[in-house]
């Protein structure tokens, strides 16, 4: 998940509420007619202002460190049939352990001549620190796919979109995008894993245009390639804490001049989803044997990319990069295999255990004074949270006497310029170098919909070469917090993290919108 991070406590509640709005779809501007009549309509109206297509407000998408951003979005709704839309994870909702499948049909995708138009967006966002961003994108898919069917590994016939031998849910697509952003404050702490915790800043202007094409080969494997041209400008500053006033180009490559980059890439992405639920013969009169059986959903999202960055007229800045991302998710759920009555639950901790279990299994309103009443019923679905294992590896190659410009180097700490969280106890962009890696483990469990509990562990480091990434420089942190889920997604999180050596750090994240 791509996340933004900030330390503004005052913004936390507003950010959660407003972001919740951006993912909700059930509210409409119709609710605003009765805005002043009751709190419910006021909340619905607020949500509609941040979600109703085609025109609505947004507050996210500014890289971290650039204040609180608000903007407007003109968009055409996403269609899951597009290969650039991350399919909504199949979700096991608490007490409703039946995953809802997204729609992969082309039936409702608008036409644009001989193309399908899957996704279009124009947006402008302005931030409290003077940063701003404007972007436009369009995804099109050549027609030619026809509705078809195939038999999946369970022997069940499923729908797909057919093109010759291909029979996939998502279809071949092309994505065009143009963006300009002006970022007033990007943090810089020097380069390398041992850089001191002294914060400097720089101002970055980026303009880039890109074209991408993706071909799903099977549902869990797609090939992608693209070309981007990007131009970065780092205006010099005489401020006391500015990078340009404190560093020189010899130690910070790219500081004195910023060439345009021609940037082609190729990528392979995987995303299989696997259920694990053993076939069992359970009976309603079971009162012994195992209490539960697993009902697990694994989602493995992995990607390997190779990038060529060819600096225009400045060969010392050209480089290549291998990026490997992984995000393995396990939704932990079970099915009850033998019943439990109130009389079986005992007292004290035992009763607490079963009442907690009953809530995980979607039951409420049990009368604990009736010993014969059923607390758990056979085959009842129960949910126990979500385990997420993520990693991100960047390895850069340069020619002799070449160097990766510092503003294109990966960062670890807080969140990076793409709003990806790494070491949550550390400041944004804390460690920077041509090579980097981090791993994360998150465990979140619903407490009371939509709130959940979060426990996490992060580890990461950077280095001038890939071989220099060692445990000796590994930074670690851990923490706990609260999540806000909407429609089964963790949409935002607030947390306390330890590990930076200066006590707990409070922070919050919310999903990047675009």
């Amino acid at each position, binding site marked *: 998940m791509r996340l933004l991070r900030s330390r503004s406590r005052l913004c936390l509640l507003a950010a959660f509420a407003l972001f919740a709005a951006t993912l909700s779809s059930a509210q409409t501007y119709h609710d605003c007619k009765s805005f002043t009549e009751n709190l419910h309509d006021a909340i619905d109206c607020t949500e509609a202002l941040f979600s109703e297509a085609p025109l609505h407000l947004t507050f996210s998408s500014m890289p971290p460190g650039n204040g609180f951003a608000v903007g407007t979005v003109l968009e055409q709704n996403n269609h899951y049939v597009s290969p650039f839309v991350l399919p909504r994870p199949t979700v096991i909702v608490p007490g409703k352990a039946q995953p809802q499948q997204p729609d992969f049909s082309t039936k409702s995708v608008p036409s644009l001549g001989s193309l399908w138009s899957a996704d279009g967006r124009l947006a402008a966002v302005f931030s409290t620190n003077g940063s701003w961003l404007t972007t436009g994108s369009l995804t099109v898919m050549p027609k030619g796919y026809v509705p078809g069917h195939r038999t999946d590994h369970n022997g069940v016939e499923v729908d797909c979109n057919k093109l010759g031998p291909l029979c996939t849910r998502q279809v071949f697509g092309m994505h065009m995008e143009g963006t300009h952003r002006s970022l007033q404050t990007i943090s810089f702490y020097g380069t390398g894993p041992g850089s001191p915790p002294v914060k400097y800043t720089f101002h970055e202007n980026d303009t880039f245009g890109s074209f991408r094409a993706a071909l799903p080969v099977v549902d869990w494997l797609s090939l992608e390639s693209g070309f981007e041209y990007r131009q970065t400008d780092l205006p010099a500053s005489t401020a006391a804490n500015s990078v340009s006033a404190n560093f020189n180009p010899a130690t910070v490559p790219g500081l004195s001049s910023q060439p345009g980059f021609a940037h082609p890439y190729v990528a392979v992405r995987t995303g299989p989803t696997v259920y694990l639920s053993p076939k069992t013969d359970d009976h309603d009169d079971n009162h012994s044997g195992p209490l539960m059986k697993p009902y697990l959903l694994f989602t493995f999202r992995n990607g390997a990319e190779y990038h060529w960055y060819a600096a225009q007229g400045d060969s010392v800045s050209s480089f290549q990069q291998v990026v490997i991302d992984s995000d393995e998710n396990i939704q932990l759920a079970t099915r009850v295999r033998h019943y439990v009555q109130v009389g079986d639950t005992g007292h004290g901790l035992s009763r607490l255990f079963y009442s907690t279990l009953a809530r995980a299994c979607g039951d409420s309103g049990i009368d604990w004074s009736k010993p014969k009443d059923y607390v758990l019923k056979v085959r009842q679905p129960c949910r126990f949270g979500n385990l997420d294992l993520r990693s991100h590896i960047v390895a850069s190659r340069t020619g002799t006497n070449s160097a990766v410009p510092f503003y294109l180097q990966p960062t670890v700490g807080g969140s990076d310029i793409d709003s990806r969280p790494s070491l949550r106890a550390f400041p944004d962009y804390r460690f920077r170098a041509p090579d980097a890696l981090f791993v994360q483990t998150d465990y979140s469990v619903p407490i009371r*919909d939509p709130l959940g509990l979060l426990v996490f562990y992060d580890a990461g480091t950077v280095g001038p070469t890939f071989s220099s990434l060692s445990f000796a420089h590994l930074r670690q942190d851990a923490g706990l917090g609260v999540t806000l889920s909407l429609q089964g997604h963790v949409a935002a999180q607030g947390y306390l993290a330890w590990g930076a050596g200066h006590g707990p750090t409070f922070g919050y994240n919310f999903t990047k919108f675009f």
Partner: protein
Amino acid sequence: MPTQVERLVVLMLENRSFDHMLGFMKQDNPTINGLNGDEWNFPAEEGAPNVTVSQDAGDVEDLNPDPNHEFAHVTNQISSTGDPVGNPDMKGFVRDYFTDCHDATHAAKIMKCFTPETLPILSTLAKEYAVCDRWFSSVPGSTIPNRMFVHGASSAGSLTQDVIAAPFALHTIFESFDATTPHDFAIYTSGSSILLANRYLLQQQDKFHDYSNFVFDAVNGNLPAYTFIEPAYDDGDGLFANSQHPDFPVDRGEALIREIYYALTKNPDWKSTLFLILYDEHGGIFDHVPPPVLTRNPIYNDLPDVKHSGPPDVFDFTRLGVRVPAVFVSPCIPPNTVLNTRDYEHSSVVATVRKLFCPDSQPLNWREAQAPTFDDVLTLTGDSIRNDVVELPDPVVSAGIDVSAGAAEPVFRAPTDLSVLMAHTMEFSLEQRGLEPPGDFRTLTNSAEVVAYLQKAQQISKAAAGAQ
């Protein structure tokens, strides 16, 4: 002692009469009260020859416009003299359809019937397991009252399709699956169901499951004691209607039946499972068996009456509707079984579910108490229980409209009356709960919009239920 039914799975499809679907099975099995081929109806126009049943029912196109099947029309269909009580002659179907389509030739299509060759999946299951030729719809009327009867042995006083408040108010068998019984239920839908608008079930959203997960759950032994399956009622959101409601393709419903059957045969509990395929009402289509009249048994006088309908069609619900197909599928049923000794109706589902899974609870009313149960149809026991899985053929597409072809240029149909009604009902029920509907149902212009509306309405229900 029959085998105990431990799993009951009910699929209720739409608007087809027994003779229309299975009547010509009589030619292979004379014990079935089906068609000889010479059954007839009065013609649409005076002087024209009588209209005889035929074996050329098509997958689509025969029944457009949708034949009338409201109370007054059913009266005219089953009795050419307008007297539905006694022994109605069942000879007014063509004339009644003529009042709808105004085309004498087209009106005669109400007599068209399928054969085992043109309806291979339902017919094969009926032959290989059991067919009931005396299952009547509960109400001589339309879809919604009959669908309410299959859940509550009552339509909450509603006799017509213009029913908005009744699904919300209805008490159903699902309320009996409380903490006093170890058994549970599940309702699989494709986004539409009158049950979603029910007062009790609005707060039981965890019991609703998307049909796309049915096969997985069936194969892996995750089905509860009682499973009710709703077909897709309308096109939209990547779905195609498979309810078999005229004039949606019959073959899609056949494919649904086949998918459910194969999934259930892989269920670990298959040998104690009963799969019941049922139709809500006859849809205005010809059947030759007069519906029975009910007389309340005095021993049930202490049970609640079913709420009567008010003007203009005052009705006390003592007369059943037209016969509908009912096929019982289980490895504990021998081939070529014909169930014809009891007059089943949709209240039989409520009564059977209660007897099997909620025996300590009380019947909802006299209709339920009086309805015959089918808990004893699993007559094979022990080693005689069948191990075979019947091989089902592909559905027959007879009439040339492939709704999946040309999907690259989607054109959504006008929504059906039923799906608009469901949207209206959902709007009403959400308002009753103090929830804001997802919009004004009257602004919905096509089937996809209705499907999307119903999905949003369910999201609102779920959110509200989760917040409590």
